[in-house]
């Protein structure tokens, strides 16, 4: 399983209710169902990937994540996971608010745009950065949101929420292994993973 998903999986309490947005072929949910007896649902837009989810015994809805989340009653899930998708969302603030409504906690992972090599590419070459995590040109990239680890921390603070856990990692997008970065993560980590909850005083 992808390295960031391994970390996410380690945060999930056994037996909890989990919603995985952009669940792909259901790798994480399949694992959680088997190993942690989680009651999970995935949302995925691709018909072919939906079939793979069903094959793994994973409950899945084909559709758009923003629209599908909208239908759930408050507190339907213990965890809502948004892994490597936030940078592709048109209105991240609205989506995250909705995620915090349907889930007691949310787990968000995204590529860190202030990784040192990205900074250097802009500084020395002057082109929009490209690397293994972000392999697209400016005109065809689905990654329309430029987020850094520091940006996300500030966003959480300003939304009146709370970071319960943060792990920053250095890994490629589909790698099975990676390192946790503790020193200067905003410069040295390729991905940030956050466990976020509403503050206790906000219902």
């Amino acid at each position: 399983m992808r390295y960031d998903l391994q970390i996410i999986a380690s945060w999930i309490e056994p037996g909890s209710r989990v919603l995985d947005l952009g669940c792909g072929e259901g790798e994480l949910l399949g694992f959680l169902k088997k190993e942690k007896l989680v009651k999970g649902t995935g949302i995925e837009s691709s018909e072919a990937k939906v079939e793979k989810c069903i094959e793994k015994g994973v409950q899945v809805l084909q559709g758009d994540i923003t629209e599908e989340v909208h239908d759930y009653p408050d507190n339907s899930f213990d965890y809502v996971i948004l892994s490597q998708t936030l940078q592709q969302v048109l209105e991240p603030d609205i989506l995250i608010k909705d995620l915090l409504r349907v889930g007691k906690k949310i787990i968000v992972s995204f590529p860190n745009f202030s990784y040192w090599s990205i900074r250097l590419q802009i500084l020395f070459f002057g082109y929009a950065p490209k690397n293994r995590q972000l392999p697209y040109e400016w005109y065809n990239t689905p990654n329309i949101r430029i987020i850094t680890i520091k940006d996300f921390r500030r966003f959480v603070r300003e939304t009146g929420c709370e970071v319960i856990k943060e792990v920053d990692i250095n890994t490629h997008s589909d790698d099975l292994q990676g390192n946790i970065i503790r020193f200067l993560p905003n410069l040295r980590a390729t991905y940030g993973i956050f466990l976020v909850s509403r503050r206790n005083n906000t219902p």
Partner: protein
Amino acid sequence: MSEYVEHDNGGISVGLVEKKFHTFAEPPNALMLESGAGLGPITVAYETMGILNSDKSNVILVTHALSGDSHVAGYYAADDPKPGWWDIMVGPGKGIDTNRYFVICSNVLGGCMGTTGPSSTNPTTGQPYGLDFPVVTIGDMVKVQKVLLDHLGIDKLLAVIGGSIGGMQVIEWVISYPEMVTAAILLATTTRHSALAIAFNEIGRQAIMSDPNFNKGDYYSGPKPDLGLALARMVGHVTYLSDEAMRSKFGRRLQNRDNLAFDFEANFQVESYLRYQGSKFVQRFDANSFLYITKAADYFDVGRQHGQDSEVEAFARVTAKILAISFTSDWLYPTYQSRDLVKVMKKNGLDVSFCEIEAKCGHDAFLLPNERQSALINRFLNRVSEEEHDAL
């Protein structure tokens, strides 16, 4: 639904099947219908495939749509020219694997393929019921299926599976008998017909009732309202296809000619095709059954019938795991209706999966060979039967 019954491409079939009958509700124990009328005796025609396992935990009920019947798969005789209507889906190693599951399919109440309907003999007159047959509902059809299962000693269904009006019966099953149904597969269906769907059904019914031979439904001893029924079938058939499917299948091609004939014979292939479908249909289907079954489908309204006008309320007691499938080009039961259905289930916290399959052949897509559909059904059934097994 249309007739696409073809021999399986791989030549695989469940083999010989037999139509069986069960009769119940003998007077004075008439079955009380939703309308308040009593009906009896009732005969239900059914067929079974596969082997019932020792703990009776592998039963799948397949429900058919408007023009289907109990003959879901296999052949009645070795020289039968055609297999059952869903032979591509039901059989050894197929989407619904008869090596693993015991499959039951029965003809609906109000039908004309062995189950009591308007063409059956009214015991009080000794003549066919005609329009004296009480109006039946999807709920009544399911009640009859329940009696059949009781008769067969089956108290648990691993899954109920159906498309279109068959899908309505599946919805009725999970709501009316929640404790009996482990899983449900809903194909190209809805919790209630749109005005568009009711409109096309009404055109079909009017075509039948305005046929000079209709005689207020009492036509069994004379000429039948074949023209009306054929017309109803032609209209229906168009709604089961799609613009794209008709464009690629017929386009503007002419039938057996190079130039327009300047007359009102079937010049275009599509005209000829529809006439053929119409004339073929009247040979096997009763016009009154068309009236009764379409009416039952139009009346079906889950919120009104089960939830005091709330669909969320109607599904409150449902426990079945659900797989819903829609098809992109289906304009009779469009994807938005399946999504609405899924929404209601999400609000109830149900275990529900949904997939919209890219298909160009319209509403009929669920009857046609489609690897994606077969795979989804097969894997979903794997999952629920494994989970059921683990739970024991």
